[in-house]
């Protein structure tokens, strides 16, 4: 018997078969012929752009190919009351301000800090609140690094910005401050690798920017779960007059007279004065628009954009009535001797991060769930035969449970639902190139930002450049691009007079 719970949805192949019947013109009933802006995709960047510009009086249509809105900020429910969050492991404190300003006070007020984050690997075992103070304590007391050196590193990381040297890699940065201290590197790098898929060979500025954002004031989560967050966001979109449609697959971005003028969605044409794509930046340029509309140098640049890694997740739902002791919300575990970016994504998995969801995450419920996340390469999974695919999924589930038994000896008996999502699953649900969980490497940011210069009226917002990734990065990048779209819409030749406040 399989360790996996019987459920059709574990195999995206079942859903793939059903899809053509769902993507119908009926989904678009009542849409207007023309909008100020069409947003393709409802990830946090797409949602935030739509809300920001809808609230400012632009007419906005948001099209999402999936049933749920939220992109990778998502969740799923299973029989017997199980509910699993995909990407609610944690985000930086800045999310509070972003939600307060671009969403609602209620959303911002539901953001709460995680209490305890743990590490266990052959180099160290420790617990932290994940802020500068606590990291300083750990680095000076446990790792015996001088306080000056620690402060020097934090200050240097903080001071790094976009215009700094892009040649310096994170490995070189670590080597400069903590020569050969691979234990320190691991503490500083492992969480970031899980947060954005970056490696020791990515530019140090991406590390510096993310690190000073992420590790200065703890890690936060959304009380109520991803389902409540997205439900609240949808309500706000409705309030602001945004027309939102699901099962709406954009097949093509229409170009006329050198400008983006609309889309083809579920076989139907809809016009717009501007189009913003929250789909993968490479897909947007090469598939949705097509190379012929761009300068060859730009096409070459777009083709050269590398993606960050994908993910595999094991979902463990506890039987009703079963409980867990509090052992922290986030637990980075590994049996690999040192931090190694290659090993972190290898099919032979040695490292996984557990997220523990206690009932407090959804006040009013009494359920517990555990999600093990593993960084993976799409290519390792893409071409497996069906039998191999099932076997690997079973193995990931078994290993995730067995490894957990070291810390929670009786956990196996408490688990009722077991399910695995792989890079193939993520590919199906988000359509990202190489099923990337965290967008593109650094060079993708420039390609994304240059898009409107290449094709006026077309914008991109979504996880790019490592620094614009994660919930906060994607939402904030959405705000930045919304400003560009607003400028275009208000300045464009056919701009209709807009209401002034």
């Amino acid at each position: 018997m399989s360790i996996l719970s019987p459920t059709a949805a574990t195999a995206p192949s079942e859903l793939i078969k059903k899809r053509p019947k769902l993507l119908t013109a009926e989904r678009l009933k009542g849409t207007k012929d023309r909008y100020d802006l069409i947003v393709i995709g409802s990830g946090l960047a797409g949602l935030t752009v739509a809300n920001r510009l809808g609230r400012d009086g632009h007419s906005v249509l948001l099209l999402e190919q999936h049933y749920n809105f939220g992109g990778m900020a998502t969740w799923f429910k299973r029989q017997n009351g199980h509910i699993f969050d995909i990407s609610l492991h944690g985000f930086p404190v800045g999310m509070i301000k972003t939600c307060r300003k671009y969403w609602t006070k209620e959303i911002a007020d539901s953001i709460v800090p995680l209490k305890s984050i743990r590490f266990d690997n052959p180099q160290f075992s420790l617990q932290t609140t994940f802020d500068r103070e606590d990291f300083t304590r750990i680095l000076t007391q446990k790792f015996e690094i001088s306080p000056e050196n620690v402060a020097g590193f934090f200050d240097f990381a903080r001071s790094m910005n976009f215009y700094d040297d892009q040649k310096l890699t994170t490995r070189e940065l670590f080597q400069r401050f903590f020569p050969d201290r691979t234990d320190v590197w691991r503490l500083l790098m492992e969480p970031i690798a899980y947060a954005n898929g970056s490696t020791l060979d990515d530019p140090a500025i991406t590390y510096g920017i993310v690190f000073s954002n992420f590790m200065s004031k703890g890690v936060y989560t959304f009380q109520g779960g991803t389902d409540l967050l997205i439900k609240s966001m949808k309500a706000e979109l409705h309030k602001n007059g945004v027309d939102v449609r699901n099962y709406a697959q954009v097949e093509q971005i229409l170009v006329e007279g050198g400008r983006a003028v609309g889309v083809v969605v579920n076989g139907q044409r809809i016009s717009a004065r501007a189009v913003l794509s929250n789909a993968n930046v490479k897909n947007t340029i090469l598939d949705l628009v097509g190379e012929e509309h761009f300068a060859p140098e730009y096409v070459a640049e777009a083709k050269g954009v590398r993606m960050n890694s994908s993910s595999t997740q094991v979902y463990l739902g506890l039987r009703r009535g079963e409980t867990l002791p509090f052992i922290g919300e986030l637990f980075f575990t590994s049996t690999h001797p040192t931090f190694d970016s290659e090993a972190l994504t290898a099919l032979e998995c040695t490292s996984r991060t557990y997220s523990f969801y206690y009932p407090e995450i959804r006040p009013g419920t009494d359920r517990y769930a555990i999600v093990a996340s593993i960084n993976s390469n799409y290519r390792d999974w893409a071409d497996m035969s069906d039998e191999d695919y099932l076997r690997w999924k079973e193995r990931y589930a078994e290993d995730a449970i067995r490894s957990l038994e070291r810390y929670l000896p009786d956990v196996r008996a408490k688990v009722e639902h077991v399910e695995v999502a792989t890079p193939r699953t993520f590919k199906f649900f988000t359509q990202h190139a190489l099923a990337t969980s965290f967008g593109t490497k650094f060079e993708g940011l420039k390609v994304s930002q240059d898009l409107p210069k290449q094709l006026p009226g077309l914008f991109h917002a979504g996880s790019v450049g490592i620094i614009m990734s994660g919930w906060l990065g994607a939402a904030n990048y959405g705000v930045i691009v919304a400003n560009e779209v607003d400028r275009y819409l208000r300045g464009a030749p056919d701009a209709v007079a807009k209401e002034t406040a």
Partner: protein
Amino acid sequence: MTENEVSKLILDIIHDIAPDEDLSDVKPEVRLRDQLDLDSMDFLDIVMELRKRHQIEVPEAEYMELSTLAGCVKYLRPKFEAKAAARA
């Protein structure tokens, strides 16, 4: 348009962007981000509000002109006056 009037229009915008900030004692010559809890996203919002409310466009290369209240007034006053003249 007087400097005071321009200053008030700017503070109105900041108040809407950062409703929790106390704006009763903003020092004109001190950088706004050093006395208020404003970050680069907030400055983007100021730029967007100027466009929406007053049809004033601030190119990205000139964002730094907005770093102090006095700087805002100096930089924006001619723009406000040009708009007023165009309307008259």
